[in-house]
């Protein structure tokens, strides 16, 4: 019976409304007790004094690039990056090569995860074969193989009838459909938010309407089908308003937002740095405020990183040619902690959006520290200052808008199933 005691921290477990000084005792990989002054006999002690102790974070949206693009990232490096960022479960998107549209690929991913990843990897399978938007994937078989959700992320299903069928069919397997909601015909070749910034930069603009139109369409389709629609990386005030209103009407729609859409505006792109190019793009200050508001009032359920590694040589090209996307796993916590410091969110709200809310959206067993739950824990020092240097991080890639910046708040220890997989002074540890 391997015992681990996480001692002396402030336990924040929004799933059960807990926020108090307590110890957490884990036995054989599961939480057995959360209480003050627990008995440390025979237990490995993790000192959490001065820190928060929370359920390990769950990322509903990350790109781990394996199979096929291992030069940018793979399950080992992505998993390690997650561990360093406090993520104990990472849902990886299907736009790999080959696309995860077949149980064989899903099994491959899970197999690699078992061998190489310090944290749990949960595959999201494609909604349509090859992400081509024409033929639905075998959802039942994919769920059987281990897929937790479906998404064509990377692309949008532009054919509305196809999107309707996907949502409809997904009901059979009870899994959410996570969408990259952008009307591609409006996006065209847009690379930055359409507005004063795109006008000044002289770059083609991507209008907010591209997102709101597609979100609106998908919400209507969710309404008529009853499927569970999950909107990926919400970035506009319009989309937040639509989701809020849909929830009032009882439609089964959930949403996620990235740390960069909560912290950065399109003004960041003024220097043409391709590490500020994302899809959807960084938006206006009003959009950022609306996303923060959406998180605060529960319209947006979860924070998801959309961790999107790209090689240096891929990003160091003309702005219009660079692939969109930035890293997120290792910087998520300090970036979103800023929302608590600026009093937009309470600590509990923040942790909920990274843990129990995310778990609820994807029907996952973890995300809480109740008796019997998996021993997936993050220990956080909310005041710790450090400088983020992507060249020294775990990700194979370096494309981050926060490179070289001082961060406040850091995950100091991560446990998965009761095993310490990461410690800030010792790095990622293989069990």
């Amino acid at each position, binding site marked *: 019976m391997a015992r681990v005691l996480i001692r002396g921290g402030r336990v924040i477990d929004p799933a059960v409304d807990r926020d108090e000084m307590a110890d957490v005792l884990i036995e054989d990989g599961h939480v057995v007790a959360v209480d003050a002054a627990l008995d440390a006999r025979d237990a490995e002690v993790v000192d959490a004094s001065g820190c928060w102790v929370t359920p390990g974070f769950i990322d509903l949206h990350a790109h781990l690039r394996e199979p096929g693009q291992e030069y940018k990232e793979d399950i080992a490096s992505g998993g390690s990056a997650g561990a360093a960022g406090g993520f104990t479960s990472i849902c990886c998107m299907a736009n790999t090569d080959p696309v995860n549209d077949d149980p064989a690929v899903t099994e491959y991913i899970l197999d690699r995860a078992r061998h190489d990843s310090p944290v749990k990897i949960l595959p999201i399978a494609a909604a349509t074969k090859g992400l081509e938007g024409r033929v639905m994937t075998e959802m039942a078989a994919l769920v059987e193989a281990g897929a937790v959700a479906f998404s064509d992320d990377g692309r949008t299903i532009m054919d509305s009838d196809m999107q309707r069928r996907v949502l409809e069919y997904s009901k059979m397997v009870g899994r959410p459909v996570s969408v990259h909601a952008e009307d591609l015909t409006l996006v065209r070749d847009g690379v930055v938010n359409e507005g004063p910034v795109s*006008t000044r*930069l002289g770059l083609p603009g991507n209008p907010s309407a591209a997102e709101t139109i597609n979100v609106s369409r998908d919400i209507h389709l969710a309404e008529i089908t009853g499927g569970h629609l999950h909107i990926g990386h919400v970035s506009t005030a319009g989309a937040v308003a639509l989701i809020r209103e849909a929830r009032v009407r009882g439609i089964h729609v959930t949403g996620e937002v990235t740390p960069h859409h909560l912290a950065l505006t399109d003004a960041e792109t003024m220097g043409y740095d391709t590490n500020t190019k994302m899809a959807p793009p960084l938006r206006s200050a009003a959009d950022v405020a609306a996303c923060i508001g959406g998180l605060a009032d529960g319209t947006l359920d979860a924070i998801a990183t959309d961790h999107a590694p790209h090689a240096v040589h891929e990003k*160091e090209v003309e702005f219009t040619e660079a692939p969109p996307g930035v890293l997120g796993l290792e910087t998520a916590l300090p970036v979103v902690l800023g929302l608590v410091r600026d009093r937009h969110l309470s600590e509990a709200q923040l942790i909920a959006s990274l843990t129990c809310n995310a778990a609820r959206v994807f029907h996952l067993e973890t995300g809480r520290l109740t008796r019997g739950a998996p021993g997936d824990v993050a220990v956080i020092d909310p005041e710790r200052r450090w400088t983020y240097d992507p060249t020294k991080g775990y990700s194979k890639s370096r494309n981050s808008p926060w490179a070289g910046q001082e961060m406040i708040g850091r995950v100091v220890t991560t446990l998965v199933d009761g095993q310490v997989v990461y410690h800030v002074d010792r790095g990622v540890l293989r069990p």
Partner: protein
Amino acid sequence: MMGRGLLGIEDLGREDIELILDTADHMKEIGERDVKKVPTLRGRTIINLFFEPSTRTRTSFEIAGKRLSADVVNFSPSDSSLSKSESILDTAKTLDAMDPDAVVVRHRVAGVPKRIADVLDAPVINAGDGAHEHPTQALLDLMTVVENKGRIDGLTVTIVGDIAHSRVARSNVYAFTKMGAEVRVAGPPTMMPVEVECLGVKAFTSLREALDGADVVMALRIQRERLAGSMLPSVREYSASFGIDRAKLRFAKDDAIVMHPGPVNRGVELSHDLTDHRPSVILDQVRNGVAMRMAVLYLLAGRKRSRTEEAS
């Protein structure tokens, strides 16, 4: 201002612009001599790094450099990072290792000169980047207007055309507003940048209103690819609505001048006879282009470089 280079008019102050105009004025006189050459940049190397082909601008820079006795080298790599074996930044760094005194960059995509300037020691001059800026064009346009009108302050300048995709429009908007003119932009709504008023201009979809009382009428080139597409239904409609001819010019002031960055699509942006005769000052613009580029090269190239100083 001009420590690092010339990436755009947006970064310049009014004083910077006045200095450049004054210098260009003097450079113009050299072009009027028999021996159109001064030894000022002798032994200096200027590289024209034109990723986007352009005979006019490149030749203008080449002549400008040669009139200052500089050695001018033309380097025209193929168009995009994707079709080459070497990335843009690698190309720039390779050239930088050859110690040029100035690098003139033109590229199809906005922001490339800035990215190059970030990694280069040598000063970078933007010869046009996507729809972003074309600073030497705006400066020579200012110079041409001053020559014809005596001043910029208080003038009404109307720019007509595909404003959304035009770097000439953006640079001129910045240049003329900084020098005290009232700037108007006119064109089809599909070709007007979103929230263009944020640049300090008034936008018009009626050419007549835009021209009312204008001192300067600047017509921009319409790219063929954009005609008969989703932006514009046809050439015919564009030239009927926004093409400038003598009849439409009557809405402007009697002594209004007509400008165009060239080359002109005759009959589209400007009528045939307006292209060739007064009040069009297009050839003045070209002449001033060499003088203006001489001024920019004089002010930027050949300054003491700390690296070489330490070596010697």
